[in-house]
């Protein structure tokens, strides 16, 4: 027996001992296992161009997609408003999933309620669930606002949120003037970034356009403020804080819409904060008067931005700006919009990033990368890699659309380093597996699920994306701004150096290159 009280063996050690290995070998006999040679043959076959062709011919089956469903994004956006409880109308299992998913990434509580619809609601509709649910949530969790979205179930049976909320108020579930914005978020359309977009638009529409017919529409009186939207972002905590710092350095008056940077980073000090920080409801309403709105993610705000533009604001969308030029463009646009100059402090930060890039570029230049993730993130990362002289080879986004494909292709075409790169909208990580086998690269950038690709293909994974479950705390550091660029650079470099060390650490074999200085 290997286990002991002095040195407790964990699962990754315990089962390697001979007792367990013998036991597992005996178990095999009952599994009717495939012939190991056959397993080996098929394994090798899955690495071939022939398999790749079959894999890419798939029409019905999705394997390991890099996207989630709409309501997740709706919940993510909703908690960015002060005292706001997300309320997802439909079956309850989905809500358990969104909460778990967000908690696993941020290592934070994630509060959200469901209207717990069951079979009878499928037949009669979910009105009673909405009425009771709103009343309970309101009494128990004392929110300032309840933001409603929907699961598949409510969408398939066609529940009408606007009417249901109206009826709920008539029945006294919540006070008539209590804010209950809503958004239909069918999971069979788009992805979590669509849900973010719909929910944010729903909330702004609520405040700006007369609260579903219960208040006069706001009349826009333009002021000097700038609205800022981050989009669905796993680095929201670090990024929004960095953006605030930049805006304050520049002296820009701003409103961050859906500011969930506090609620996803609450302190451990004896108190559980179900709500924390967030865009105040007044700010949300007054955001209509802003001069303009900047979105950091075009494809997270495809509906919200036009909606804001219709209210007379200048709007501007970026694609997850990362690195030097993208940050330059962002700052200059911000300066133009706000009329504020870019302070020397930021110029120095820029200089430091360029400095770091020159120091390290020799290790990144010419390295081949595969990238996957949300469409804007992919675009931003690709742009940064090009600046570093790295060569993106595969850029894949399961929730990327045609427009994304074209825009990303144009970006790549504009650089000597992007000439060998292909862009894959709507593909999944099993497609990526074939790509990595048939057209190998040096490094892969993606979320936690990329570790399966790393295991199968041996391509080292640099974890940037959402979700990241198996590494801690990276969401607390920004990847935007020059300082964020620095963080990304270091992340990439660390992996590169670790890999070189790994390849050169065999005593007496490869360790002549096990250098002390790199």
């Amino acid at each position, binding site marked *: 027996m290997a286990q002991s009280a002095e040195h407790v063996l964990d699962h990754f050690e315990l089962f390697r001992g001979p007792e367990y290995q013998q036991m597992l070998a005996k178990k095999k006999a009952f599994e009717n296992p495939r012939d190991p040679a056959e397993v080996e043959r098929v394994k090798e076959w899955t690495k071939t161009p022939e398999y790749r062709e079959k894999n890419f011919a798939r029409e019905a089956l999705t394997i390991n997609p890099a996207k989630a469903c709409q309501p997740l994004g709706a919940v993510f956006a909703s908690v960015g408003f002060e005292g706001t409880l997300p309320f997802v109308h439909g079956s309850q*299992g989905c809500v358990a999933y969104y909460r778990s998913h967000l908690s696993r990434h941020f290592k934070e509580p994630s509060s959200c309620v469901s209207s717990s619809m069951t079979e009878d609601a499928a037949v009669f509709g979910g009105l009673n669930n909405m009425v009771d649910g709103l009343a309970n949530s309101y009494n128990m969790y004392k929110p300032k606002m309840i933001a409603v979205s929907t699961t598949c179930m409510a969408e398939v049976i066609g529940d009408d949120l606007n009417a249901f909320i109206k009826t709920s108020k008539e029945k006294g579930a919540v006070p008539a003037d209590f804010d209950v914005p809503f958004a239909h978020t069918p999971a069979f359309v788009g992805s979590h970034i669509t849900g973010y977009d719909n929910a944010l638009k729903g909330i702004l529409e609520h405040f700006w356009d007369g609260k579903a017919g219960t208040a006069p529409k706001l009349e826009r009186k333009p002021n000097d403020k700038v609205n800022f939207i981050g989009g669905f972002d796993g680095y929201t905590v670090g990024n929004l804080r960095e953006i605030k710092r930049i805006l304050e350095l520049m002296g820009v008056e701003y409103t961050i819409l859906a500011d969930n940077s506090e609620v996803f980073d609450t302190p451990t000090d004896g108190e559980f904060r179900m709500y924390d920080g967030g865009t105040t409801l007044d700010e949300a309403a007054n955001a209509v008067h802003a001069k303009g709105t900047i979105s950091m993610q075009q494809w997270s705000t495809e509906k919200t931005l036009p909606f804001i533009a219709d209210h007379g604001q200048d709007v501007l969308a970026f694609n997850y700006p990362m690195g030097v030029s993208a940050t330059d463009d962002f700052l200059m646009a911000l300066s133009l919009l706000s009329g504020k100059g870019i302070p020397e402090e930021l110029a120095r930060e820029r200089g430091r990033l360029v400095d770091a890039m020159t120091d390290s570029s020799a290790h990144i230049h010419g390295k081949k990368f595969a990238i996957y993730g949300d469409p804007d993130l992919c675009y931003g990362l690709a742009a940064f890699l090009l600046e570093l002289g790295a060569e993106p080879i595969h850029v894949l986004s399961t929730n990327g659309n045609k427009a994304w494909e074209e825009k990303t292709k144009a970006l790549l075409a504009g650089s000597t380093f992007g000439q060998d790169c292909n862009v894959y909208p709507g593909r999944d990580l099993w497609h990526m597996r074939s790509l990595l086998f048939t057209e190998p690269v040096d490094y892969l950038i993606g979320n936690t699920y990329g570790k399966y690709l790393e295991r199968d293909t041996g391509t080292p994974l640099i974890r940037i994306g959402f979700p990241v479950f198996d590494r801690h705390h990276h969401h607390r550091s920004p990847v935007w701004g020059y300082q964020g660029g620095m963080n990304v650079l270091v992340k990439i470099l660390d992996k590169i150096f670790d890999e070189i060390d790994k390849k050169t650490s065999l005593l007496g074999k490869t360790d002549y290159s096990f250098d002390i200085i790199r």
Partner: protein
Amino acid sequence: MSLVTTQSAAEIRARNKELIEETLKVYPEKTAKRRAKHLNVHESGKSDCGVKSNLKSIPGVMTIRGCAYAGSKGVVWGPIKDMVHISHGPVGCGQYSWGSRRNYYVGTTGIDTFVTLQLTSDFQEKDIVFGGDKKLIKLIDEIQELFPLNNGITIQSECPIGLIGDDIEAVSRAKSNEYDGKTIVPVRCEGFRGVSQSLGHHIANDAVRDWIFDKNGPDSKPEFESTPYDVAIIGDYNIGGDAWSSRILLEEMGLRVIAQWSGDGSLAELEATPKAKLNILHCYRSMNYISRHMEEKFGIPWCEYNFFGPSKIAESLRKIASFFDDKIKEGAERVIEKYQPLVNAVIAKYRPRLQGKTVMLFVGGLRPRHVIGAYEDLGMEVIGTGYEFGHNDDYQRTAQHYVKDSTLIYDDLNGYEFERFVEKLQPDLVGSGIKEKYVFQKMGVPFRQMHSWDYSGPYHGYDGFAIFARDMDMAVNSPIWKKVKAPWKDVPKPKLLAAE
């Protein structure tokens, strides 16, 4: 040290009753009435815990429960490693449950095993409007093409399937015929069915009965010689390797495990189970249905067991052995004896550090009762427990074999109630799920996830007990808990519902 140890049982009972009353005040009247039936203080001697269970969750309260799909795909079917499990419907359900449950298995993933793949039909609007059967047909062909070594396919229905009138049974039959009788199992585990994961377990059990047992017929031969000592492990999902650290004990006592349900399990093992001489059942909640079925149909007895903590392990080994001859009975004694030094060492090391510490639990199928013995082996006391999706038979077992007088019992607990209870009772440890973990840690209360073992485990068996003890000690006695209050703010004030 928590409050309870200084109080008499009567005082505790009164306090807990009052706490329930207080907590119910927040609700609108109708809700308060419904919730009151799910909360109670246990009285010893009673045959159950005095709570209603397996009823619909109340809208808007932040129930901790999941859905039938989670019960079927996530719990029962998902771990069967050599079958491909399709999350049939839109992308979300499969995405959120992808790889998160830690059902360990051995195999070449993507080639002959598929547990940590997320395969979905990723429904789009047109599939909802025109139905998804055509897509499903094509999808099965694509699985056959890309994963030729799969031993079977299951179709795990998400909410829309049952609402749009798809006939996944017809598709399954047709495709099975087309592929020479291949095992293709449609599972009607749409998330809106039932009130929790629980109905999903039941539906999944029934699918095994209808689409695997009935398909093979009672006379299908196992591919091995039967022995009088063949048993099947039922209801162990091999979280962090639980089934392995259990199996090793059974084999050491002379039994032969012919099937694992379902952690690290395979289709062949499911098919062979009717040949077992005894089904041994760990998670009663999720697999009692199929055990009862096998008893009725094949005459296989079943017995519940508990492999958490040395007291219950020894009791269970003897109970299992009682179904067999002296050779096995002696084997059980030999195993108990073999591990006694380990048990002694673990208890000697950790019990002094954990003695008298109090625990509140809120988990799923069997753990709200099964782990109590393990805590008690370490000198800890469970002062509150409840089930996310238990039924009355769970509460009966809990009352009759596990909880002490005056234990606070809560069924289908929600976020609000859980916070109030913990705030008031100030346990030294809370054991629940990922959604609860950070809430309590923020409050400065040590916490362990008791679904995923907080990425540790195994906790089953003697080897697992060492890890369990180490983990509980590490949670309760972490030096970090002393840092929660900033020193300049650390003015002692009674925390007891002080806010109210």
